[in-house]
């Protein structure tokens, strides 16, 4: 199986970038004694169809970055554009689907009704959204769990429902905050393969936060390493693998990329 590695043309004009961030800064509770500068002087550009993983020490500001990109919080300073418009505009245009660090399902809705939530808000007809939700739950291997409530699902299953929910309306940009953190190794690898398949088959751009270096290397076209607080992108490592099948994990190229990311991360954490 040949695996095209989608890459935007180098030096693409700013309008073609899915994400462009320059000099981004975020300070929580400014002007107060408990002010925290989570992000400062962060630059990042993401081209269409890229799969960018963001890796960095715990508490450095990865989730904060994702929420800024999603227009859920406002930056203190700097520029940030999504698909050539402001993060707010992109949010209102439903440009992206987000998977939060915590599954964040609504307790009173069954799995299938949780997946239907965004479709409901977007005004899909009942039969259409039901059909899509069934399909999405199958995709994340929860075929038989349509009518289960979140309290009846394991943490990993809840997270998979959240992933199905984010994918349900086929957003062109996926923002994922440690989506596979709660999964066991086998399910995690299966979900990684599914995500790669979706990414390959649809024209999706993915920004993916993870703590796992092998996961970042396996999935990404590029790994961005964040520094400790205040966070910026300390290094970007392009990943070139011959193919992205489970077998690649045992190849020389894979190990080389993993150790390169690891060394970068270590040097970042040391400073």
């Amino acid at each position: 199986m040949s695996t095209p590695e989608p890459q935007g043309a180098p030096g693409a004009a700013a309008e073609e970038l899915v994400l462009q961030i320059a000099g981004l800064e975020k300070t929580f509770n400014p002007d107060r004694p408990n002010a925290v500068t989570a992000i400062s002087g962060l630059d990042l550009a993401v081209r269409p169809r890229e799969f960018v993983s963001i890796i960095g020490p715990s508490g450095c500001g990865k989730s904060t970055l994702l929420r800024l990109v999603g227009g859920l919080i406002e930056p203190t300073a700097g520029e940030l554009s999504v698909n050539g418009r402001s993060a707010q505009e992109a949010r209102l245009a439903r440009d992206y689907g987000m998977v939060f660090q915590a599954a964040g399902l609504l307790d009173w809705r069954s799995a299938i009704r949780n997946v239907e939530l965004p479709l409901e808000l977007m005004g899909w007809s009942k039969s259409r959204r039901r059909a899509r939700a069934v399909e999405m739950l199958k995709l994340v291997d929860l075929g038989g769990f349509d009518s289960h409530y979140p309290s009846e699902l394991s943490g990993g299953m809840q997270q998979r429902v959240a992933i199905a929910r984010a994918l349900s309306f086929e957003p062109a940009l996926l923002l994922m905050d440690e989506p596979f953190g709660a999964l066991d190794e086998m399910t995690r690898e299966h979900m990684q393969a599914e995500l790669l398949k979706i990414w390959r088959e649809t024209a999706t751009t993915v920004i993916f936060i993870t703590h796992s270096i092998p996961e970042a290397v396996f999935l990404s076209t590029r790994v961005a390493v964040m520094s400790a607080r205040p966070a910026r992108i300390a290094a970007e490592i392009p990943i070139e693998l011959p193919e992205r099948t489970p077998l690649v994990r045992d190849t020389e190229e894979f190990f080389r990329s993993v150790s390169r990311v690891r060394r970068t991360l270590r040097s970042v954490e040391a400073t």
Partner: protein
Amino acid sequence: MASSSTSRRQRARRSLIFAVFLVALALLYTGYKAVGQAIDDTQRDWWVVGSFLPRSDDKNMPPVLDILAEFGKAPREGGTTIGKLTFDGALFTLREAAVGFGAGTIIGLAIAVVLLQSRRAERGVLPYVIASQTVPLIAIAPIVVVWGRTNFGFLPWEWEDWMSVSLIATYLTFFPVAVNGLRGLQSPSPEATELMQSYAAGRRQVLRRLQLPASLPFLFPAFRIAATASVVGAIVGEISAGVRGGLGRLILDFAGKYITGPERLYVAVIGACITGLVAVGAVALAERLVLARRGELAR
């Protein structure tokens, strides 16, 4: 299947426990009465403790069987029985309470939704909502009735006195609904709110799909309080404003004839208790149905 049969068994068991409770209550009553009378028959004054206890002669504590028999008796020969009078009065009072409860729920929710919109509104208005409940009910009931008779001429329907009593129930209902409702509407986590924002959900959508469903577990306890308060408020309202047709008036009438037939008053009071239980039971049933639909009983 299995769960429905266990719940049926549970319900049967609960009914049995309730029946046992009622019988135990009747036995306790009768037992106390017997002991009290025995003390009376000896030397009550000499028995220091006994002199503090309620008197237990047939005037003060009619025998259980006499009370039960009273249900079937008619005050006038061939007229309506006491049981039927009480039943009709209970229906009348229940209607007042239900209408007031419904209106109070709508008003309470509306206040909660308005206060939800801004912290400033919440801080500014909530103290007044709380202060509203310090107005003594017995004092305002007659005012409300008189006021209703003279001031509601502009309404498209004719204002009747029972509606003024409903207004009192409304007044008692809106408060717990507004306060608990507001807490419930504010209960979703910041993450859930951000999720809705990420879908560019409008304020109305957030209210309907997130905040209102999240508030239900907070609202049902308020509904239970409000259901009792509505019935009590309706009875007290009828008594203090002299509105005819309901349990309040019946209690007042029977209290006036206590000397000749204390059993009657007991019948009316039992009727009031049952009315309160029916109101609370209706709320509990609604809660069960809603929670079952939300899968919260499956846990």
